[in-house]
């Protein structure tokens, strides 16, 4: 809905005329939708703004409170949760806030603004022998921890995940206050986000991101990790034929498949407990094929080749040795574990050229777009956050049966019904999701929606956990799940009411201050 002229002008005064627009063409480039949707275009924003710093963000938030208009901030805007929840929502596209504020090598943290993408941060860190967590969605997403929906990715085994990596944060609350968490508030330093006293980190993020529902996080510090690889990866060739000239010393790649999920879980546990892996990523072979295939045809051919070569579910392992002897030890232990758990290496990817390319692609996470969108897909069915890896796999095995039914009906692409899994923090916890690929037809969308609902119901009824909607936590979902989970919806709503009394921070991916009618 068009903003009243005076109101528009008030926002324009904040960001300048070049950085605000309500032209339909500008708006539609934000309202286009991918994924299982019946409509190509969703709700338009009332206007798009491009604030350049915290002060402008704060001023916009204050104006929103003044005029009773909602706002939604976004980083790269990939997530469907960065869409507006209604017609009177202003977008804050944080594109102009793109600085790495600090990389503190000795104390292993980095501070970023929302439009630094993970690859930028990682590339900068690698020059310093460091690395960061990158979400599975890919290095093209924001490195800012509040943008990621769940916050974990391929390197979770050694780089943990968002919720646990956050340090100090600068937060513009829905009322327009600037709250500086932890050492930032006390000292102006970024190294710690908790205290004094209770940690306000708790109200800013949980196992899922607030998806725009509780203000704007303008800067955040996040923990970083050691990197023993080269400062710049030796990638050669011209797109998309990229491959490294060599596998760096002390790096090792294998993809293993197992007779069944039981052996896979056991192997993962032993790898985690022996602390040997830099990355354990439970790609299914369709996803592996996407990582390798530089075109749809190649992707298809690899998949057809691999599905004949594997025993059952599997994962890829990347070892990174900090020294030659560290590397040798890790390799030896891995080989022993794989022998004991009856894993089999997928031979074609042992080829150093292919392995080299896969190492890099999986560390930088550049192929998730291929994995998901070449065949038109979406990640669906997951438990919120992390759980024991074995529990995650058990849930996936159950959901995979539903997926296989839809494959049989020809609604989903036949990828043998597999899911993907990965552990965090040397196997302490894990995460799993299922990728479904489909053609956009009204029937397929109905079936997919039905699948998602059934998978969520299964998570609740079978006590696996609170499901994680991958398109943001719509408010009514909280009211559905909450009664099964300590009535968390009631508590989260109270927080929302206290911190956003005017309900200006768009809650379409959070919880609304007022409970919707007809939802228990």
């Amino acid at each position, binding site marked *: 809905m068009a903003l009243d002229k005076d109101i528009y002008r008030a926002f324009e005064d904040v960001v300048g005329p070049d950085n605000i627009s309500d032209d339909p063409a500008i708006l539609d480039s934000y309202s286009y939708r991918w994924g299982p949707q019946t409509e190509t275009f969703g709700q338009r924003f009332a206007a798009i703004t491009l604030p350049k710093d915290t002060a402008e963000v704060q001023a916009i938030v204050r104006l929103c409170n003044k005029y009773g208009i909602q706002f939604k901030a976004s980083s790269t805007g990939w997530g469907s949760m960065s869409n507006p929840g209604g017609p009177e929502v202003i977008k804050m596209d944080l594109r102009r806030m793109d600085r790495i504020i600090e990389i503190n090598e000795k104390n292993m943290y980095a501070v970023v603004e929302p439009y630094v993408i993970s690859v930028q941060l990682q590339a900068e860190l690698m020059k310093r022998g460091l690395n960061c967590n990158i979400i599975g969605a890919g290095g093209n997403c924001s490195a800012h921890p509040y943008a990621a929906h769940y916050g974990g990715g391929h390197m979770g085994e050694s780089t943990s995940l968002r919720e646990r990596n956050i340090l100090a944060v600068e937060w513009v609350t829905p009322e327009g206050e600037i709250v500086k968490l932890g050492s930032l508030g006390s000292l102006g330093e970024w190294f710690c986000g908790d205290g*004094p006293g209770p940690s306000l980190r708790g109200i800013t993020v949980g196992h899922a991101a607030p998806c725009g529902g509780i203000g704007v996080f303008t800067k955040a510090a996040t923990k970083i990790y050691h990197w023993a690889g080269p400062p710049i990866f030796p990638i050669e060739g011209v797109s998309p034929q990229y491959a490294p000239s060599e596998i760096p010393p002390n790096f090792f790649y294998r993809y293993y498949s197992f007779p069944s999920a039981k052996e896979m879980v056991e192997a993962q546990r032993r790898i985690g407990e022996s602390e040997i892996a830099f990355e354990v990523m439970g790609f299914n072979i369709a996803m592996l094929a996407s990582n390798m295939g530089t075109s749809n045809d190649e992707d298809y051919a690899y998949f057809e080749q691999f599905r004949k070569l594997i025993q059952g579910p599997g994962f890829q392992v990347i070892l990174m040795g900090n020294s030659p002897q560290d590397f040798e030890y890790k390799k030896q232990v891995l080989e022993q574990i794989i022998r004991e758990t009856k894993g089999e290496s997928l031979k074609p990817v042992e080829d150093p050229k292919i392995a080299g390319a896969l190492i890099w692609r999986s560390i930088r996470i550049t192929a998730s777009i291929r994995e998901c969108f070449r065949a038109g897909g979406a990640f669906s069915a997951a438990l919120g956050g992390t759980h024991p890896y074995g529990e995650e796999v058990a849930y996936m095995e159950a959901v995979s049966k539903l997926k296989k039914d839809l494959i049989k009906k020809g609604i989903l692409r036949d990828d043998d019904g597999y899911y993907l899994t990965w552990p965090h923090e040397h196997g302490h916890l894990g995460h799993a999701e299922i990728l479904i690929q489909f053609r956009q037809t009204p029937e397929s969308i109905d079936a997919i929606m039905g699948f998602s609902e059934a998978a969520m119901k299964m998570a609740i009824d079978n006590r696996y956990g609170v499901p994680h909607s991958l398109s943001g936590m719509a408010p009514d979902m909280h009211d559905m799940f909450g009664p*099964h989970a300590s009535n968390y919806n009631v508590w989260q709503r109270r927080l929302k009411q206290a911190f956003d009394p005017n309900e200006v921070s768009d809650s379409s991916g959070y919880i609304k201050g007022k409970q919707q009618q007809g939802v228990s």
Partner: protein
Amino acid sequence: MIDEKKLAKIVGATNVSHNPATLEEYAGDMSFVKPIKPDYVVKPRNAKDIDKLVNLAKETLTPLVPVSSGAPHFRGDTIPGIGGAVIVDLSDMKRIIRVDRMNRVAMVEPGVTFEELIPAVEKEGLRLNMPLLPRKSKSVIGSMLEREPVVMPKYHWDISDPLACVEVIFGTGEMFRTGAAAGPGTIEEQWAVGASQKEAAGPAQVSWHRLIQGAQGTMGIVTWASLRCELLPSIEEPFLVGSSQLDKLLELVHWLTRLQLVNECFILNNINLAAIMAKKFPDDYQDIKDSLPPWTLFFNIAGYEYLPEKRISYQIKDTTDIAQRTGLEPVGAVSRVSALELLKAVQRPSKEPYWKLRYQGGCHDIFFITINDKLPGLISAMYDMADEAGYPASDMGIYLQPIVQGVNCHCEFNLFYDPENPSQSERVRKLATSTINNLMAKGAFFSRPYGESTDIIINRDAASVAALKKVKSILDPNHVMNPGKLCF
């Protein structure tokens, strides 16, 4: 004053006390916080009792002060902030609810101490990431709720570790379970499908455990908590590195933590190391102290199930290489202190009497979080201030604990003193508060403020205080939970 009968009805008459001697015990502690006598001390037996107590307090607007550990207390957080309070002493809730080897997690009630939990987890091949030599009576939950630093930075991924989930009765009288424990289903139903209440974050978009930690009981009372455990090593090889150059030791610590090579890892000055290792005071203590270099780094290398000897041997080589680069040499013993002996000591709670009290009978801790680069400046400032206050530098213990995998360092100044000596006590008391501003200016972040210095610390940032008050107004709108603490 609340009606004793009502309390007795909830916890049973034998678990309510208003015996003056008992009340006196809870009225004060070893800190400088002004004593205030509670009206009652109650000892709930289970979560139901707690639930009823909180609801009663809410109705009657009675302050509740939850206490999990046994005496002696040190920080004033369990001393009632106002009169008319009821102490909720949870130390009798001693159930070890579960130890889950596969998922490396344990679940305990608040009264369970380290001494009690260690053998239980060891039986399953697990171990705890402990604070440094907690006193014998220290509750595991108490320690985790206070975000106490732990001695194995490698397994301390997040500052909230090793806490996983909690069940809590908020000040509103409502029960809530945090993280994965929230639901769906009962805890037992969750176990049946392989769940283990280990994910701390959530449910959904809030991480409630973070609001309960560091709150000093001002939000609610925890009835159980689950915690991450680590594997018991099959072999270990500890080392000591003595030096007068702290910067070199810090450089070494940086690499040991960055490469995640070592398990236990911390630095003590000669005073603290002597205080821990001495068997006889004062002679033994003095001898050890005099024989030690100013700083000693302790670290421990471990092997687990797979090729443990091989792992230990290459890790020793790697650590030695790094140490040599910094001009240091890890050894098995520094003067009379053996690394193995220290390792054994720090894998258990402190022997009685508590190590901090052995030397002079009293100890006041000033502690904060910082980063390595700021430590030398902070330590030298502290020496100067101690000197100015007439506190002998030769009595000040220093403990440096890398935490959060080396991202932060917990720095603790232990001011040993004789509590029977009023002038010494007064000197320490003054020093404890007068140093805070100066230390903050030099990069000390007091993430856990206690006692008299709380206001100076917490009021530095009005926006955070306002936010905290909002949280408080949701979880404990009637201000019955430990009122008078922090900014509440």
